Every structure is written in structure tokens, then in C-alpha cells.
């Protein structure tokens, strides 16, 4: 996995691959410049910017849901915390937006640690149920705490302060890029290996010296922080947020849907999931608004029963059909652990496969 090093060459860290890096930079450059060369029209441009945020949030959720294997139904608690801290800092102290996002994110991450550290001991559905409790309790307390969140009236950001929706496209892109890098690092580095071990068998992992508590807490903190930053982004985008919307159970579910429908445990997955989520919201629903719940429901059922790796699983299946085998390094780093995949003979173990944005390498 280490790239060949010659004295003049830049030395990449052990977990990075040159091919992936190049691919990443190409895609980034493309996404950066396309709207400048071919204007997308305000509406589409803004939607894509928002999609970047949902991708980032989905990826961050997925660190906990896919890498660690703990499905959180309460991530709106961090989304809302980040959003309101960020908005409150902007309204009351006039801090620049990027500072409010960062501070909001960190506060959200710390909050995640606060409730998460004790609950991560629980496994499987019990953790998920606990997260439901956390999410709902947070929503109720936040709605009550008028001084902080404005209560049910919400908070409005002053107009003209901070980036415009147009500019948020690029800030969303930066956010997404950072999150993708983090995702890749978490997965490919020793941390990823440790997480894989924990996911498979907690006791065995601690027997070999992997401290499950530390690693889970780390991922939880990072996940909470990023989702908190996304909350700050969302606040800047909407210029008005209220606790009912930010902390709602529906909001938490949207992260689950993005992660699961897109593909738990992969990087491509939540990205695809976010696109599906936005596409359904904006386009299909314009014509068939009465079907949106049912559509998500059916997708979820189909994914769980037939393709637990969601859309990215579908893509990998197609890729395998065309004879593309994942390279040995990515296969070994794959995270379709037996604990999360169904106990069916056809489920590929270790076929981590394509996890970059642009497809098989």
C-alpha cells in the first residue's frame, strides 16, 4: 500500500493510494469549476450545494452506522445542536460563518460524546433505541430553551451576513472533500482496521489490545462534529432554523435513509444515497408528492431484503458482472462485515470494492 518513494517524490501516508488521490483531485477540480464554466441556473446550483452537505452528513452518519456498526436514529440531536450554536454565535456575537460552523460542530461532537460514551456499550438495536430517546429528549429540551434556540419561534440569521447560497456551493464542496478524505482515512488506516475488528467481535478485539471504547468514542465525536458542521451549513443556507425542524425524528431518519439506501459501510454509498434523497425530494415529488413516504419505505424494504449494501452494492454487483474485480488492497480493507451483511451464501465478505467517487480502480 505504500507508494514507491524516491528521494524527490512526495511521500504519501501509508493509507493513501496514489490512484485514489489523483482521482479525488480530478473530481474535486471538476466539481469546483463546472458551475463557473457552465452556469447551472440558480436553482440547480443551490440544490447541488445542499446535496454536498447531505452527502457529508450521510458519510459522517455512516462512520457510526457502517464502520462501527451502530445505527443511530438520533443524529438530528447533533445536527440541531451544531445548527443552533452556529446560528446563535452569528446572531448574538456576529462571528464569521466558518467560525460558527466549526464551533457549532465541536459543541455537537462533545454533546455526542456526552450521551454516546455510556450508550455505545449497548449493542445492536438497544443502542438504536437509546438514540431515539436522545433525539426526542434533545428536541423537547431545545424547544423549551428559548434563550438559546428561540424556542418554537426559531432563530433567524441576519440577511447579507455570511456567504450567499451561490457561494455555499463551494463551501459545501470543501466540506464534502474534507469529509471524504476523513472517511477514507478512517477506513484505510489502522483505525479502520481496529473498527473492523470491533464490529466483528468486540471481545476478541479487546483481547488483542484494541480499545473499543476509545475507537468508538473517537468515531462518535468525529461523526457528531461533522453533522454539527452540516447543521451550521444548513442554518446559513436557510437563514432561518427552528427546533422542531432541526431536531425532528424525520431529520434523524433522513440520515439513516441516506446511509442505508445508499449503502452502509462504503464511501460511495452515502454519496449516492444523498443524491437519491435530494432527487426524490426535488424532482419526483414535484409530480407525485403524495407518494414520497411510500417511496422511501419501499426503497428501504427493497434494500434490506435484496441488497443490504444499497445502491453502492448494486453498483458493485454491476461492476462484478463486467468482470471488474476489486483490487486486493481495497478488498482487504472492505467493511462488509458479517455482522452487518445478511447470513446468505451470496454475500461477499471482504469485497469492499469501489469506494471512491469515480468508480472502480
Amino acid at each position: 500500500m505504500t507508494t514507491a518513494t524516491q528521494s524527490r517524490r512526495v511521500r504519501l501516508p501509508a493509507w493513501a493510494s496514489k490512484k485514489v488521490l489523483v482521482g479525488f483531485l480530478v473530481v474535486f477540480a471538476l466539481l469546483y469549476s463546472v458551475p463557473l464554466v457552465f452556469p447551472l441556473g440558480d436553482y440547480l446550483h443551490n440544490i447541488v450545494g445542499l446535496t454536498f452537505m447531505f452527502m457529508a452528513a450521510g458519510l459522517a452518519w455512516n462512520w457510526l452506522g457502517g464502520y462501527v456498526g451502530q445505527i443511530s436514529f438520533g443524529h438530528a440531536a447533533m445536527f440541531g445542536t451544531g445548527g443552533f450554536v452556529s446560528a446563535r454565535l452569528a446572531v448574538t456575537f456576529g462571528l464569521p460563518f466558518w467560525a460558527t460552523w466549526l464551533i457549532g460542530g465541536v459543541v455537537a461532537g462533545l454533546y455526542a460524546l456526552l450521551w454516546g460514551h455510556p450508550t455505545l456499550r449497548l449493542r445492536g438495536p438497544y443502542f438504536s433505541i437509546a438514540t431515539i430517546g436522545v433525539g426526542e429528549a434533545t428536541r423537547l429540551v431545545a424547544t423549551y430553551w428559548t434563550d438559546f434556540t428561540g424556542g418554537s419561534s426559531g432563530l433567524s440569521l441576519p440577511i447579507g451576513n455570511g456567504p450567499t447560497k451561490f457561494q455555499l456551493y463551494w463551501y459545501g464542496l470543501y466540506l464534502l472533500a474534507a469529509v471524504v478524505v476523513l472517511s477514507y482515512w478512517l477506513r484505510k488506516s489502522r483505525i479502520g482496521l481496529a473498527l473492523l475488528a470491533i464490529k466483528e467481535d468486540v471481545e476478541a478485539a479487546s483481547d488483542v489490545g484494541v480499545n473499543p471504547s476509545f475507537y468508538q468514542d473517537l468515531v462518535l465525536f468525529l461523526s457528531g462534529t461533522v453533522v454539527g458542521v452540516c447543521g451550521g451549513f444548513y442554518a446559513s443556507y436557510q437563514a432561518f432554523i427552528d427546533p422542531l425542524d432541526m431536531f425532528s425524528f424525520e431529520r434523524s431518519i433522513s440520515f439513516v435513509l441516506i446511509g442505508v439506501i445508499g449503502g452502509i459501510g462504503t464511501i460511495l454509498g452515502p454519496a449516492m444515497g444523498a443524491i437519491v434523497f435530494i432527487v426524490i425530494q426535488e424532482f419526483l415529488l414535484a409530480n407525485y408528492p403524495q407518494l414520497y413516504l411510500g417511496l422511501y419505505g419501499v426503497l428501504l424494504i427493497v434494500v434490506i431484503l435484496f441488497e443490504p449494501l444499497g445502491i453502492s452494492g448494486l453498483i458493485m454487483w454491476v461492476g462484478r458482472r463486467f468482470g471488474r474485480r476489486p483490487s486486493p488492497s481495497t478488498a482487504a480493507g472492505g467493511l462488509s462485515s458479517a455482522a452487518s451483511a445478511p447470513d446468505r451464501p451470496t454475500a461477499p465478505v471482504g469485497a469492499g470494492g469501489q469506494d471512491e467517487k469515480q468508480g472502480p480502480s
Partner: protein
Amino acid sequence: MVVVGCAPSQSSTDTSKDAGTVPDTIVIGSTLPLTGAESKTGGRYKQGYELAFDEVNTAGGLDVNGKKVKVELKLLDDTSDQAKAVNLAQRLITSDKVNAFLGTYSTSLVEAQSTVAEQNKIPYVNGGGAATSIYTKGYKWIFGTLAPVENLATNEMEWIDQQQKAGKLPKPAKVAIVWENTSHGKDFRKGIQDFAKKTGTYQVVVDESFALDGTDFSAVLNKVKAANADLFMVDAHLPDFITMHRQYLSSGMCNKIETYGARGTEADAKKALGQKGVDYILSAVWWNSQLGDKGLNKKFVDSFTAKFGTAPEWYQAVSYEAARSLFTAITNAKSVDKTKVRDALSSLSIDSILPGGKLSFPADKGGQASYPFVVQQNLPDGSSPIVYPADVATGKGTAPNPGCKG
């Protein structure tokens, strides 16, 4: 790594293109919850808009500087989702380039959607957002035909005050305020608190909020009972109203004045609680068809009934007035230029079906119309006459509640 960097700024936003010319059709953008949780209300708002558009078009079109122009409503479904309301508004304003915008329903959606209108500098008239917080942000492009919810509480208190002055209610009177924790509830509570402070003859003995969709209100109701309140003033959505009032009735409670804010007179309430269950309940709404016995109101009620086969309620009245005020502003501005239309809205003063007879968007209220609510009381014969304000009253109310013994 540079985190805060640069993001390119928008090169050009040619919103001023429509400065001089009058188009062949004026397109007004709008979103409403046509499906989803609030679809019933959204459908009613749609009716109000449609009536206004039809009236203008059957008259040949809107007069814009001498030219008769057809008006078209471009209405999308926001399913009561805040993000969707924002994105669809964005689309209508920037992609479809509508000339003006008619707002959606429910305060939180209007509050979110109005920022889009303000950012894009397009006139935004709504009948769906009543919270004062929408209009106290210093926005210049937002106008609302819903009077503040504080007025709802204040007008009810004014009628109650008349009863107190006539000796029918104790002085000082004990008030219990139980309010849902939404911006609507908060404003309702504020109206009562402010009135009590101002007059000094009312003592707030209970002031409790509750979360939506409650399963049991025994604790709060017990508090009200223990405090021996004279006035029981609640602000609640229909499901909570039903749950709470059923428990209220079956626990044998009765107060000299009972009100659930805007609830109580609607058919759903009588269906769920029975006539006896809603007797003497006081309620206040933005408009009621009993206002429609002469003039502009009669015309409105008649043409609405002719078109839709049912009598209009306040939803259709406020949305109709929102559209109508926008049309009048365009005519007054003699142009579809957004700034001119906005200015015309700011200085607008027209005869209106709304209580008080006049509609304007005063700047000191941030563009929110201000007029009295009509206060009604349910009577055992099934009617719900207007008891306040006096100039539109159709009956006399009764206080204290004759249903209570002693």
C-alpha cells in the same frame, strides 16, 4: 490548508430586466401544502387564491398602466416541509422568474420561505404566517394579511373585560393560561399577559405550556382546578383540544370563561365533542362568514359560494385578500417592476373584507396587517354568533358560563 477561502461570487443577477416592460402574462409564484399533514388547510388557501385570480381574469385581466394583462398562478406543493418550501420558492423565483410571490401556510414555513424572497428582492404577500417574529426582522419585501396572534388573545380579553366591567365576572379575575409550545401558542400567551399587565384586574394563576400530541393533561388540568381559575384560556391544535377538553369535561371541570384560542366553532370540534361539549366556548378567528351580510363581504361570500358550493372560512378570506392586495399593488404601481410593486404594497390602503374594513401593511408592524379578530361564542342552539367587536356583532355572548353550577 486554507479552509476559509474563496468562493466565487455570483457574476450577474439580472433581476432588473423587467423594469420597463409590461409582460403579456403576469406569473405569480406560490407554494402550499396540498398534500401531507396540512393538506386540508392548503386546499382552502388554494381556493382563496383561485377566486382572486378568476375574478381578475374574467374581468379581462389586471390593469397595468392601461394594458389589460392576464394573471397566472404557478402553484407548487410543499407538503408542509420547510426545506421544500424554501427550495421550491427558490426555483420559482430564480428559474421560473415569477413576478411576485404568494406565500405558503403555517408560520414556520412562511418564516423560512420569506428569507428567500427577501434575499431575491421580490414582493412576498402571505396569508399563512401570523407570528410577529416573521415581521420584526427588518425585512422590506414581506407582507402579511394575518393579524398577529397576540390580537386574538387581546380581543378575547377585551370582550371578557366588558363582562367584568358589567359585573358579570369577578374583579380581579384569575386567569389560567395553558398554551401549546409553538410560536402560535407563545404569541397567544403574550397577548394575555400583556393585557393583564396593562389593565391590572387580571391575575395569572397558571401559566403552563405543553408539547404537541399529548396523551394526558390531568396534571395541568389539576393545576388549573387547584388554582380556582375563573378564566380558562388555552391555545391548542385540534387533536390536543379534543384530548384536553374531553378530560376537562369528564373530570367535571367548568370555568366562567373557556376558550381554546381559535378552536371550538369549527364543525370538527362539534363532531368530536358534541354540542354540549362545546357550549359557551369562546373563540376568535381572523374572519367569519357571518361578516358577509353587506358590501364587499357579501360579494365575496356570494361569489365564493357560487364557485365552490360551500361557505368560505377565514383561510379563504385571508388568502383571497393576500392575492387581491398584490393585484391592487401592481395596478397602483403601473408596472411589474418589483421595487415599484413593493413600494405600492407598503403604501397600500384598500377596502377589505377583513374585520375593520380596511387592509394595509403598516411599516411599524413590519408589514403585518393589524385588525381585530372576530370573537365568537358557541350557543346551545348550535349557533356561534360574533360577540365582538360591537360593530359587527351578531349576538350577545353570555358570561359567566351558565353551564357551571355555583
